[in-house]
């Protein structure tokens, strides 16, 4: 093992754990040995301080920064306000804006349905039907009549029919 040991390995070695290879490296590497010794000094100091009776707390006016002390209270208040606002929004009657929007939507829907289902005006319908009669007559070959047919009066029925339509 040629690379220096990481801090967590040094901690394990200090605690009596770690592999033989790591221990061998620790013995051979002065840098790691120095770091290991510093770690040991720090831990001994920490252990000694923590083994003593914990000191008393200061009075309330020397507590931690004000922001830190009130952070949970502020967070709880913000949560309550957000909850109340959410609940009131859910349960409150629709506002004026909502009513106006609903009205405009209904008007639009009426316009659309009127446009879709509107019936044509009566004269338009009649014109369309007469044109259809002419067209049908032309397609079936019964009309227009030839000159001879007109003279013989063979097409009178068709004319009467057209005149009646018009």
């Amino acid at each position, binding site marked *: 093992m040629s690379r220096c040991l990481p*801090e*967590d390995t040094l*901690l*394990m070695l200090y*605690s009596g*754990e770690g592999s033989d290879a790591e221990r061998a490296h620790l013995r051979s590497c002065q840098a790691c040995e120095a*770091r290991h010794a*510093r*770690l040991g000094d*720090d*831990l001994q*100091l*920490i*252990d*000694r*301080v*923590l*083994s*003593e*009776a*914990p*000191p*008393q*707390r*200061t009075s309330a006016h*020397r*507590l*931690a*920064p004000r922001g*830190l*002390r009130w952070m*949970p209270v502020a967070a709880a208040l913000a949560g309550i306000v957000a909850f109340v606002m959410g609940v009131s929004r859910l349960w409150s009657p629709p506002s004026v804006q909502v009513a106006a929007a609903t009205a405009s939507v209904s008007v639009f829907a009426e316009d659309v349905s009127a446009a879709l289902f509107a019936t044509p005006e009566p004269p338009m319908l009649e014109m369309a039907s007469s044109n259809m009669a002419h067209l049908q007559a032309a397609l079936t070959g019964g009309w227009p009549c030839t000159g001879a047919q007109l003279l013989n009066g063979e097409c009178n029925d068709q004319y009467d029919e057209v005149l009646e339509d018009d």
Partner: protein
Amino acid sequence: MTAVADNREDYDDLYRLHHPRVLRLCRLLLSDPDEAEEVSQDVFVKLLKEHRIDTRGIQWGPWLTRVAVNACRDRRRSGWWKWWRERHQEFAEADLPGRELTPEDEVLNQEKRRRIWLSFRGLSARQQEVFVLRHVEGWSTDEVAETLGLSTGSIKRHLFRAVQQMRRTLGGPT
């Protein structure tokens, strides 16, 4: 009658032997010394009940430590707000121990002591438990893992983070 008397004697011995250690443990894991005293008394009430029921094969030292750690955790959970607030309190230098310490301890900088305590109080509850059991109580990693119901890898991570954080206050590696 004799058996009861023997039990009582055993209990007294156990109390004398372990009470200072359990109280120190509770004072480390709880910020309030009065609360620590209460919890340590509760622990020994539990010991008394358990001691009457069954004393076969129980290692009372580890048993007491385990019960004390759990009791402190329950106490912290029940008073989370108080516990959170007190984590951030300052320590009064005048109240720091040191007047009756050895000359070597006297040399130890008061500011350093204050910073170590503050740093310890700044650790998470789990990190505090791991650090105390591993370093103050001197348990092995496996024993701590079994007691806290965690894996050994998790114990090592908690311990490493706790040590790093506390060493930073001493100017150690970041």
